[in-house]
């Protein structure tokens, strides 16, 4: 069942995320994915996350599908032009991959091949338009397709962006372009999230709260300093500082954030960044 169908059923939708390895040894990644089976409604597969070259998102989604796990295919505009993107979307459809998360992608300088030529032929909004067009049986230049693929297009938004207005305007455009659900950047401040959700209510689109597990004080400080739109408040940093058992604390904080913000939104997307094995514990602790 794709994510759109889950939202329609009215349930609180849960997803998590895995990152393909750098190389071809997939055992560890698939073992992590198996732990999520039956616990989440979909598993995102990142697309060369942070511009670091790895095994592809497309083939990994296929491996998940084979194991009975619903994938959420992340697609960025950094590495492929409109021809390659459309072709990859058709390929995904043939293998039964329906959820597609459309992203702009980080700049190449952030990764391990800073000398690469950045593409950005399309952007996240036009990529959503492409997904919509393909579903309607046409490609971007208007040519007829033989057979229309079925997708459920998703997009991302940063509730903590400052200023927030351009984010919301872009979110509105993404909805117009065909986004059927949103996953957010990590949120640690329920009051801010509540205000954000009030401001986007008019869009009438399901939003999945983004939760990134805090692994250490260093990680929290790093995100505050360098990652756009993420703010870990001092009280959480203090809690991490004082704890003897970082893993348990991290699970407790993530579960608490989910419980607190669950009534405000339609789902949650849990990002463990290396701690994938602990995601089931977060889900249990949050009572999902």
């Amino acid at each position: 069942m794709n994510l759109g169908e889950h939202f329609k059923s009215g349930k609180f939708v849960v997803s998590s995320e895995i990152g393909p390895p750098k190389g071809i040894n997939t055992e560890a990644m698939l073992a992590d994915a198996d732990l999520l089976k039956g616990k989440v409604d979909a598993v995102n597969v990142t697309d060369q996350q942070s511009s670091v070259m790895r095994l592809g998102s497309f083939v990994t989604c296929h491996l998940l599908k084979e194991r009975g796990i619903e994938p959420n295919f992340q697609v960025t505009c950094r590495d492929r032009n409109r021809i390659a993107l459309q072709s990859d979307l058709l390929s995904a459809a043939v293998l039964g991959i329906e959820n597609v998360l459309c992203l702009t992608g980080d700049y190449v300088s952030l990764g391990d091949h800073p000398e690469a030529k950045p593409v950005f032929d399309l952007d996240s909004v036009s990529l959503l338009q492409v997904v919509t067009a393909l579903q309607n049986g046409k490609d971007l230049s208007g040519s007829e397709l033989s057979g229309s693929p079925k997708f459920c297009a998703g997009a991302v938004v940063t509730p903590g962006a400052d200023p927030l207005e351009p984010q919301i305007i872009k979110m509105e455009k993404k909805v117009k372009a065909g986004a059927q659900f949103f996953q957010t950047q990590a949120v640690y401040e329920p009051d801010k999230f509540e205000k954000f959700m009030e401001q986007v209510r008019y869009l009438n689109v399901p939003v999945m709260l983004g939760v990134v597990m805090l692994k250490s004080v260093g990680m929290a400080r790093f995100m505050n300093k360098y990652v756009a739109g993420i703010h870990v408040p001092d009280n959480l940093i203090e809690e991490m500082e004082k704890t003897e058992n970082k893993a348990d604390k991290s699970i407790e904080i993530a579960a608490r954030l989910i419980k607190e913000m669950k009534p405000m939104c339609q789902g949650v997307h849990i990002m463990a960044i290396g701690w994938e094995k602990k995601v089931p514990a977060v889900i249990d602790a949050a009572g999902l």
Partner: protein
Amino acid sequence: MIISQQKPIEEILGYLEGESNIFLLGCKGCAEACETGGEKQVLQMKETLTKEGKNITGTCVIDFLCDKALAKTRLFAHEGKIGKADSILFMTCGIGVQATSAVLPKVCHPACNTISVGGARGEWRGEERCNECGDCLLDMTGGICPLTACTKGLINGPCGGSKDGKCEFEPDVRDCGWMLIYERLKKLNKLDNLKKIIEPKDYAKMNPPKDIRSTIMWSLEQKQVN
């Protein structure tokens, strides 16, 4: 020389929709040589727009709109007429629109597409401002080019990497182009522009026929060879 071509008049009239008082600005640099922004074209535009029911509050043709300091002093004498206008129509290249619109408190519309840098860029010798995309978007973006001001050349708004007004690429030295565009549009009361979806760019327009594309130096050399 920067090669520009006048946009189709329907596109220009679309920009001016809902505005009745227009100030026309031409350029005696490359735009005059391309016959897109000299005295003659400015007067023709005045006539066309007047026929379309627009009131032209004034016209002015300046040497090198790409030099904003120079343009600012020259425009001083036209302050009253510019003040009366709802917007300014720039009959010049993308660099000229960007440089001079930055010092004017008005909505600025481009009348031309910049298709090629066939030599020196007027008075502006850098590549910071215009990529010669052949289908100018400055009307939507408040006179700041999204293709050059945004590292990724995004045309539909900021990516998730914008932090404290800076770009994720070189945040210590590079402003986020989309934050600049947002601030400018907010100041001009034109934030609605951001809500319109800009269709994927036609990058074929960046490859105009070779004869328009070649630089003066290249043309001279080719003549010598033949």
